[in-house]
């Protein structure tokens, strides 16, 4: 039993819904009690989908449990088929139905419908949303494309001379983080390379598209969390190679192009020579100097967290001080990535643990999900969102992919934005004691003299600073920090967002060197000692 305040992922049947909802003609019959229909609103409200998810819930109640919930499943399924006439159906249980063990697979089979029916076994008490999506996509691909599988040992014939290579884009789902725009961006990129996209799946795919996946020359795996298992099966069955690089960031996009070139034998030089992203120049321009060595904490799904770490380190010149994921299935990849930055990865789906890690590391910026955005807001740290769990804000009206060269441009803007705000606050902090720009002064465009009713000066944005006025802060049984008033006054001149750290470091330095009280000299000695 695990105490959970907020969850990063829903249950695995929500993952299955993300596959069914992404597609055009697949219907999912979910054996579930009243209330599980809440999941519909994720799609209709967060993603603003214009159609209800293609899901029928059997809606059993307590009084049904003694009687025949299996009969209820069969009638719900038969009615759903009659009403929606799907090309294929998925059947499965939500967490409660799993406990009553009605066997949707067997019941569905007994109905003998004239369409493919793919049964799902998604253990709710063990697994989560992304795994559920991956498993559903895999079984759907296997169930539908499997009918066209060639004999074992079949070799893919060479592509006829003059025919452009064709690939499938695998992994984009409903409720995915920027999946909609990533598809467009990567399709453009591949087209410019001379590669055609045969099918995108599951997003907007039909059951027939899934059936024909094996026809393409290779697969592009956009989101390994969702599509890795299916891509591996397609490779084994149809001798289709698949890409391993996720093209997020300039470097990764270049690597991705090289990988596609390798698979297809295409010369990528022309596309690479166009230098189509502004990120490299923006990062090298002098006004980006202030980005140097910014300490960032990164947390998200494995794909986006690993990509963000590489971009932060190599393309922004940040210092990655923490890297983690809630995707246990991809924990190994994240651990490997963390080693590149000399870190131990944080693998956790406990929001409170992530919060504690951020608090302890005191980063200058957080790159995370909406959950970390809230943590960062509370701690007064800038934050940009890089990963699901999704929020309505993660479906912007404008085109804003994460992948490809345009994705890199979007990322540059998105990440710099909160830091620009940080810079403004820095200036505010510098003028903190100023007669004109003090914390209680009203915004200058509102005229002079008025004092704000509700002060939102930096101190209040940073609750940890409440102790600034006191002479004694760090208290342990054997050592108490005492600041002389000069040093205390000097500390206040340090911008608020690094002040807490300066205080902590100075006190640490004083304690280790047995210095008391802390004077101006101690402050600057400590600064020199800890300076990077």
């Amino acid at each position: 039993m695990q105490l959970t305040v907020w969850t990063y992922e829903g249950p695995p049947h929500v993952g299955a819904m993300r596959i069914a909802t992404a597609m055009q003609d697949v219907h999912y019959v979910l054996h579930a009690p009243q209330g599980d229909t809440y999941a519909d609103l994720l799609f209709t409200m967060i993603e603003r989908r214009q159609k209800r998810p293609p899901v029928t819930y059997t809606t059993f109640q307590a009084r049904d449990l003694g009687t025949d919930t299996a009969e209820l499943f069969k009638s719900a399924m038969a009615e759903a088929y009659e009403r929606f006439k799907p090309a294929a159906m998925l059947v499965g249980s939500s967490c409660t139905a799993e406990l009553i063990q009605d066997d949707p697979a067997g019941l569905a089979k007994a109905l003998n419908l004239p369409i493919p029916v793919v049964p799902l076994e998604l253990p709710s008490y063990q697994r989560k949303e992304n795994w559920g999506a991956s498993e559903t996509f895999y079984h759907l691909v296997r169930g539908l494309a499997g009918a066209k599988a060639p004999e074992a040992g079949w070799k893919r014939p060479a592509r006829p001379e003059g025919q452009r290579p064709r690939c499938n884009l695998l992994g984009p789902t409903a409720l995915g983080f920027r999946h909609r725009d990533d598809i467009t961006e990567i399709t453009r990129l591949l087209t410019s390379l001379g590669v055609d996209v045969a099918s995108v799946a599951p997003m907007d795919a039909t059951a027939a598209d899934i059936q024909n996946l094996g026809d393409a020359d290779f697969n592009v795996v956009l989101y390994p969390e969702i599509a890795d298992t299916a891509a591996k099966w397609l490779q084994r069955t149809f001798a289709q190679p698949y890409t391993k690089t996720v093209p997020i960031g300039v470097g990764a996009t270049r690597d991705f192009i090289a990988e596609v070139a390798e698979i297809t034998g295409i010369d990528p030089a022309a596309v690479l020579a166009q230098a189509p992203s502004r990120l490299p120049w923006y990062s090298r321009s002098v006004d980006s100097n202030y980005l140097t060595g910014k300490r960032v904490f990164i947390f998200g799904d494995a794909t986006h967290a690993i990509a963000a770490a590489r971009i932060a380190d190599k393309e922004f010149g940040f210092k990655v001080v923490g890297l983690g994921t809630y995707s246990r299935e991809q924990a190994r990849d994240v651990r490997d990535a963390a080693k590149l930055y000399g870190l131990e990865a944080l693998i956790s789906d406990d929001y409170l643990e992530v919060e504690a890690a951020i608090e302890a590391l005191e980063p200058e910026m957080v790159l995370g999900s909406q959950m970390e955005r809230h943590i960062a807001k509370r701690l007064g740290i800038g934050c940009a969102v890089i990963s699901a769990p999704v929020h309505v804000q993660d479906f912007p009206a404008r085109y804003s992919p994460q992948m490809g060269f345009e994705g890199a441009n979007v990322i540059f803007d998105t990440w710099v934005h909160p830091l620009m705000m940080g810079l403004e606050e820095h200036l505010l902090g510098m003028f903190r004691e100023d007669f004109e720009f003090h914390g209680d002064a009203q915004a200058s465009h509102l005229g002079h003299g008025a004092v704000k009713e509700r002060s939102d000066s930096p101190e209040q944005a940073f609750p940890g600073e409440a102790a600034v006025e006191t002479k004694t802060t760090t208290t342990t049984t054997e050592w108490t920090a005492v600041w002389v008033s000069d040093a205390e006054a000097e500390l206040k001149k340090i911008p608020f967002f690094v002040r807490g750290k300066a205080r902590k470091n100075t006190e640490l330095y004083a304690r280790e060197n047995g210095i008391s009280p802390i004077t101006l000299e101690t402050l600057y000695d400590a600064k020199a000692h800890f300076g990077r």
Partner: protein
Amino acid sequence: MTSSVLTQPVACATPPVQRHESEKPVIRERGQREVFCGLTGIVWLHRKIQDAFFLVVGSRTCAHLIQSAAGVMIFAEPRFGTAIIDERDLAGLADMNEELDRVVTRLLQRRPDIKLLFLVGSCPSEVIKLDLSRAAQRLSRQYMPDVRILNYSGSGIETTFTQGEDACLASLVPELPVEAEEAPASLMVVGSLADVVEDQFRRLFDELGIGPVHFLPPRNSRSLPPVGPNTRYLLAQPFLGDTGRILEDRGAKRLSAPFPLGAEGTTLWLKAAADAVGVDPKHFEKVVAPGQERARVAVERQKEVLGGKSIFFFPDSQLEPPLARFLARELDMKLIEVGTPFLHRQHLERELDLLPRDVQLSEGQDVEKQLDRCRDSNPDLIVCGLGLANPLEAEGRATKWSIELVFTPIQGFEQAGDLAELFARPLVRRTRLEV
């Protein structure tokens, strides 16, 4: 309608009960229900009882539901959470009661501010028959008097949406102190109201000379209202069947009234309390007149938009019949179908009398069939849940999301205009947009 409501029928002391319900039989359906389960009530209950924590004992689905229903991720540590049952618990590798005790201990150590802990049952905990009432007793022995520990079920197999509040309040009733036998008659207002609404009602009761007045749930678990044979209770919400029954077991008597929505509903609701203690009708009219007038003016303003428009309610909160009565009688809207998850005939007796005679009520739901009826009848406005609203809007139909009616203060004279405006807004919006 508005003027006649305010001039005559409320003046007579006890309105004679006349049964004139709808002529049409209630549609009763079962099938897919597009409604929340009772766990969702935690979203407002934890804001109401400010020192309570709600611990759902359930699955990841339960945790995900509450998080999604809360809509925004509140950026403080909230006073609700889920003890997620995992495979080790189910396989018997871990003793579930010991696990629960461990989780509760950790929680209470972290949150010394918690004085009342609800263990909230879910579909999985009900199906595996995890006995949360015994767990609550066991843990209470350990943590009383610092923390009171109660339990109720918010499971979807037993409760629909607002029934979760009913189950929660019903679990509180046995904890209420005994009212002294010689105590003067007291009034208990039952059902969560926004604090601002509660304060308005309290002022009105004071002016009317009605008192003492208590509210259930209280804002703080240390101020539980007393109950006894001299308690009269007035329901502020229509979904409190079990709570009412248990209050009556403890001697309280229900005052029959419509619900305090709109000028008429609020007047009749207050009147029921006033009549029970013999407030002079002239004094009553004097006290309520200013509020009534403000409500009338505010509601009248929306009549231009809503008058004559047709409306279709999908079931959601059990507030549908009183809302429909308000819209029909004070705004001249045409009711096409009034769906409700559960129709409590006794508690709604006065509402059913006030509804138009040709109203089509429906109880329970088969969402596909109901959508067919809705499309066929082509209403001007559809009241429905969040799962249906955008898809219906995409078909070109105007909708009002029902959950807002639960989260927004809508009761009382001062909110009558706001309530009307909630229904008018989607229609006004459509006239403004030119894209």
